[in-house]
């Protein structure tokens, strides 16, 4: 019986192939747009994660802090915020000299003015602006601490950029979802109406709504699956073209691709069921 429904779906598609192909291309266009945003978001997320991994909080210590007090502070920071690396005054000066490059420029400096510092690599859950700001406030309360820096404005903007991209993807995703439902709903509605005499005969013979609807639903699901596959192909080609210009552009992970396809199919299924249940009621008793 299952093969019968697939044969019926194929028969319907063949008989109204113009309608079906139009639907596939319309869906492909909408899904490509959605996929493009998904690809951008994924790449932005990947980039932000990479940048986020490099985020750290630098805590400058007062010069008169004893080794014992310093070790106590390190232990507290490690427990509360993440991995801590101690940079002594000498090490800081050495790094500074290396960065300047020409030691002659620093001849006038008689005494090392740089403080010792602690570099904290924050835990992943703290890698956002509000958490980093709160952590900095807390650390500033330590009597051993001279100052805390973590590039607050930079972190805030990075977070805002990530959030904006996610919001944009969601908005485009919602619009595309509506477009999918609209296209499938109208395609199936037109297909069923074009086959109205056949549907009526089936109904007179005692076919249940499910029996009549199943081939149309299969047709819609197949159209959505083909459209999603085409859209993924377009995105893959796009990524390939862009990767030649921009280093580090990645394609969607397999799980995202499957979710993308699954989402399109689920929406098509819902739209088809909705369309055909309405049309069947209008076709007659």
């Amino acid at each position, binding site marked *: 019986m299952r093969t019968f429904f697939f044969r019926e779906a194929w*028969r319907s598609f063949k008989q109204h192939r113009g309608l079906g192909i139009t639907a596939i291309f319309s869906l492909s266009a909408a899904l490509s747009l959605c996929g493009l945003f998904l690809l951008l978001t994924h790449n932005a997320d990947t980039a932000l994660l990479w940048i986020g991994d490099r985020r750290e909080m630098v805590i400058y210590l007062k010069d008169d802090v004893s080794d014992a007090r310093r070790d106590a502070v390190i232990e507290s920071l490690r427990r509360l915020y993440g991995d801590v690396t101690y940079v002594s005054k000498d090490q800081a000066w050495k790094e500074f000299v290396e960065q300047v490059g020409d030691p002659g420029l620093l001849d006038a400096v008689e005494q090392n003015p740089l403080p010792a510092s602690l570099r904290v690599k924050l835990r992943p859950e703290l890698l956002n602006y509000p958490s980093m700001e709160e952590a900095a406030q807390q650390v500033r309360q330590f009597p051993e601490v001279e100052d805390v820096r973590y590039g607050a404005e930079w972190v805030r903007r990075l977070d805002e950029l990530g959030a904006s991209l996610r919001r944009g993807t969601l908005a485009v995703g919602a619009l595309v979802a509506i477009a999918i439902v609209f296209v499938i709903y109208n395609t199936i509605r037109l297909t069923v109406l074009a086959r109205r005499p056949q549907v009526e*005969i*089936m109904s*007179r*013979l*005692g076919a*249940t*709504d499910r*029996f009549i609807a199943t081939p149309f639903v299969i047709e819609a699901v197949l159209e959505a699956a083909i459209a999603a596959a085409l859209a993924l192909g377009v995105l893959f080609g796009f990524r390939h073209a862009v990767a030649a210009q921009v280093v580090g552009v990645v394609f969607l992970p397999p799980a995202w691709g499957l979710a993308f396809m699954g989402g399109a199919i689920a929406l098509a299924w819902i739209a088809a069921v909705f369309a055909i249940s309405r049309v069947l009621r209008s076709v007659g*008793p």
Partner: protein
Amino acid sequence: MISFEQVTKRYGQRLALDSLSWRMDEGECVVFLGHSGAGKTTLLRLITHEIQPTSGTVTVGTFRGGRLSRPQRALLRRTLGIIYEDFRLLGDRTVFENVALAVRITGRFEESDVIPRVLYALDEVGLKSMQTAYPSELSAGEKQRAAIARAIVNRPAVLLADEPTGALERRSADEVLALLRRIHGEGAALLMVTTRQEVADAMNGRVLRIEEGRRPDGEGLAPEATSAPAFDAAQAPPPALDVAPAPALDAAPADSALDAAPAPVPAADSAPAPEAS
């Protein structure tokens, strides 16, 4: 099996049926004879629940009155075999596929069971050799025989025929009527509506006249007709059928009535079944 109790049907202001009461029993042949617009097709549409009566009660087997849900209505229709004047075959399918559709619609048979049932029905109507033909390749008489094969393939308890010879020339009409008589003779109840006296006479059944939605002679209005209980399959006499028994028209719990007739095995010289495509 089927009874109408004081059934009235109006389409807006127009009165199609006026307090019509009648009944038919299992295995009976009833022919409604009346001119065009007398209410004959309305009567059939009430039986198949395409429309609802304005008042009165229509009983078909255990489906008694009221508005049926869509699944119930589908179930009711699967227990009937319906033949239309205009055949209502699907033009994009072969004769075999048209008949097979009715089997598949029951949802109770594997693909391997569909083929012998369809071939048997086609053999009964003499169309086995034309199973791969499309309706457009058939004569009107052959189309009607294909429609009859579709109607009988599930062994319904009752056949409804809406002017089955209306679109046929004399010879084809005679063949179709002979076929219907034979099917009725094998046990199936037959309800036919027609405008032609000679068709009614040819069926050798109970002829009920209908004019302007009424029974002019009062026939079928006997008191027992309006108070008869729903048909009880268990108490019904066995049908005189030597091929496959007509099932009882029983709705509960599912379309089990159709199970009454196992698919007959086609003869050994059966033509190979076409692959439905």
